[in-house]
C-alpha cells in the first residue's frame, strides 16, 4: 500500500539472483511474502526467532535479510538483537527492517543497530522487491514514514555549516527527506530537484549514516517520547 520506495526507479536488477533470508515470527506472513517476491529474489532461509535468525544468517550468508522488528526469543531485543548478533556479517549482508509497529523508538532502534532501511508490512510485493534490490545494491530505503521520523528527530532547519555535521541535515538532504515524506519516489525526487537518481541515493545514504552515527542524545529521547506517529 505504500507507494514509494521508488517503484521502477532505476534500481537495476542484479545479474544473479539476490539471496534473501526472511525473519518473521508469523508463518502466514513469511509464506505470503515469499509468494509475492520477484523471481529474481531467491529465498534461501527463514527464521521465526532471534536465535534461529542469527543461526540461519550465519549459515546462509544472504545478501539481504528481511527482518521483522518484533521477534520472540533472545533477550527480548527483537530485530535489533538479530543485527547485533550478526555484526560480523554487516559488510556483506544487508538488513531491511519490516514492521507493523509504527512506534518511532522501534524503528529508530533497528536502524541505528545497522539496518539499511525500513518499510511497513502493508507494502506491496512489487515495492518490496524493489526495496530488496535497492538494499542489495548498497542503497538505503526510506519509506515516507521513516523520512517523517528523520525530519522530526533532526528538525526541519538546515545545518549552517558543513555537510559533515552529524546532528543536522544539510539543506539538500532536508529537501530530499521532505519529498520522500510527501510520497515521492526516488525518481520523482530526482526530477523535482533536477539531480540524478544516483545523487538522491547518495543523499539518502548520507541521512541514513547520520541517523546511525549521530550521538545526538535527543534522538533517543525523542524516539522514546514518540511512541507512535
Amino acid at each position, binding site marked *: 500500500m505504500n507507494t514509494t520506495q521508488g517503484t521502477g526507479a532505476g534500481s537495476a536488477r542484479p545479474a544473479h539472483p539476490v539471496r534473501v533470508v526472511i525473519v518473521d515470527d508469523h508463518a502466514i506472513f513469511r509464506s505470503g511474502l515469499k509468494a509475492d517476491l520477484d523471481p529474481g529474489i531467491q529465498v534461501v532461509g527463514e527464521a521465526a526467532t532471534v536465535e534461529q535468525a542469527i543461526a540461519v544468517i550465519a549459515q546462509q550468508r544472504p545478501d539481504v535479510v528481511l527482518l521483522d522488528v518484533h521477534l520472540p526469543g533472545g533477550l527480548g531485543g527483537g530485530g535489533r538483537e538479530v543485527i547485533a548478533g550478526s555484526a560480523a556479517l554487516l559488510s556483506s549482508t544487508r538488513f531491511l527492517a519490516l514492521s507493523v509497529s509504527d512506534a518511532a523508538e522501534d524503528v529508530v532502534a533497528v536502524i541505528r543497530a545497522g539496518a539499511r532501511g525500513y518499510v511497513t508490512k502493508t507494502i506491496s510485493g512489487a515495492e518490496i522487491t524493489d526495496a530488496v534490490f535497492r538494499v542489495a545494491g548498497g542503497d538505503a530505503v526510506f519509506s515516507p514514514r521513516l523520512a517523517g521520523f528523520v525530519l522530526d528527530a533532526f528538525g526541519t532547519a538546515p545545518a549552517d555549516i558543513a555537510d559533515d555535521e552529524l546532528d543536522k541535515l544539510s539543506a539538500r538532504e532536508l529537501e530530499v527527506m521532505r519529498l520522500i515524506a510527501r510520497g515521492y519516489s526516488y525518481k520523482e525526487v530526482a526530477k523535482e530537484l533536477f539531480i540524478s537518481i544516483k545523487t538522491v541515493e547518495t543523499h539518502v545514504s548520507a541521512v541514513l549514516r547520520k541517523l546511525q552515527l549521530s550521538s545526538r542524545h535527543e534522538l533517543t529521547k525523542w524516539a522514546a517520547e514518540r511512541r507512535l*506517529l
Partner: protein
Amino acid sequence: MTTLPARPPLARSSDRVIAGVCSGLAAHLGWPVKNVRLGMVLASFAGGAGLVFYAWLWVMVPTADEAARRNARRPASPIAPAVSQPAQEAAAAADAGSPAGAPGPVPEDQGGAPVPPWFRARGMRYGKEILLGCGLLLVAGIMIAQLLGVDVSLGTLIPAAAVLGGASIAWMQLDETRRAGLVDKTKADQAGGWGRLAAGLALVVAGVLVMVSGSGSWEQTWLALLASVAVLGGVVLVLLPWALKFWRDLEAERAGRIRETERAEIAAHLHDSVLQTLALIQRRAGNEHDVVRLARAQERELRGWLFQDSGRESGQLSDRIKAVAGEVEDLLGNAVEVVTVGDAVMTEAHEALVQASREAMLNASRHGGGTVSVYLEASDGQAEIFIKDRGPGFELGDVPADRLGIRESIIGRMKRHGGSAAILSTGDGTEVRLRLPAAAEHAEGKS
C-alpha cells in the same frame, strides 16, 4: 428528580480538622458539617463515646481519593457496548469544536459537599494548632490542679499521654501513607514518614514500659525493656517467615487482580471492535475492496486504542488531519497514508486548512484511485500540507466552472484564511500544496 436523592458514598473528605471524618459523615448524611462536629465533641464527653466512634470511622472509612480509585478500578462489563470508536470520535469532535475553550476549574477534592474556600483553608491551616492548644491547656489544667493540692498521679498520666501521643503520631502516618499511594511523594517525604513512625513507636513503647513497671526507676525499666525486647525478638523470629509469606501472597493476589481487570478490559475492546470486524470481513470475503477497507479501518482503530496516550491533549493539528484522513479512507476505500512532522494547536484558520485538505484528499482518493500520501509539516512559523496521488492528473483549466470542489473548497478557502494553495498535476499524479503562515493565524485570531 423523582427518585430518592443518591447519597454520596461515605468517604473521609479532604476538608478536615483531624482526619476528615466529620465532614465526610456530614456529606453522606446531608447534615451541616458544624452540627456533626459539635455532636461528635459532645458525644466525646459521654464516656468518650464520640472519640471511640471517631476513631472507628477513621480506621474503617476510606479517604475520598481512595474511594474514587476503588470505583475506577471496577472492571468494565465484558460486553460493554460502544466502547470503541463512536464515543472517541464524539469526544474528539467536541474537543475540536472548542479548541480555545479552557477547561473548567477542576475541583480539588472529589468527595464531600462543596465547602466555602475560607472554611476549608482555616480547617487545614489551624487544625494542628488547635489540637496542640488543647493539649497544652490540658497540661496546664493538670498542673494547676496539682498546685491547688489535688492529688494527680503523674506516674500514670505521663505514660498514658505518651502512649496516646505516640499512637496518634503513628496512625497519622498510616493516613499519610494511604494518601501517598495516590500522589507520588518524594523520597524525602517517605523518610520523614518513617521517622515519624519510629518516633511514635518509641513513645508508645516507653509509655507502656513505664506504665507496666509502675515506677520511674531506671533499673527496673531497663530490665523490663530487656525482657520485652527479648520476647518481641522471639515472636518476630517465629512469625517473620509467616508474615513474609502472607505479604508475598497478598502482593501476588493483588497483581493477579490487576491483570484480570486489564484482561477484561482488553477482551471487551476486542469483542466490540476486532471480532465484529472479522465477522464482517468473513461475510464480505468476496469483495476485495470492502475487505481492504474494513481491515484498514480496524487497523486504524486498534492502533489508536493501543498507542493512544491518554495524557496527551487532543485538539492538535496532526490529530485532526489523521482523523480526516481516516474519514476519507472509510468513505472511498483507498488508503490515505499520513506522515506528520511537528504539530500545532488548532485555530480557526487551521480548521480551514483541515477542511481544504479534506477536500483535496477526497479528490485525490476519488480520481487518483490509489494510495494517497499526505504530509503535514507544522512549526511556529507556518503549517504546510501536501496531498499527493498517482492518478492520471488533470488540467485546472479543464475543470468546468460550476465544479466548486477545487476552486472554492480548496483554493478559495485557503485564500480567505490568509494561506495559499497550489495544484501541480502531471501524467504521473497530482499534488495539492496547502500553506498557512502563522501571521494569518494571528489575524484570524483577532477577528
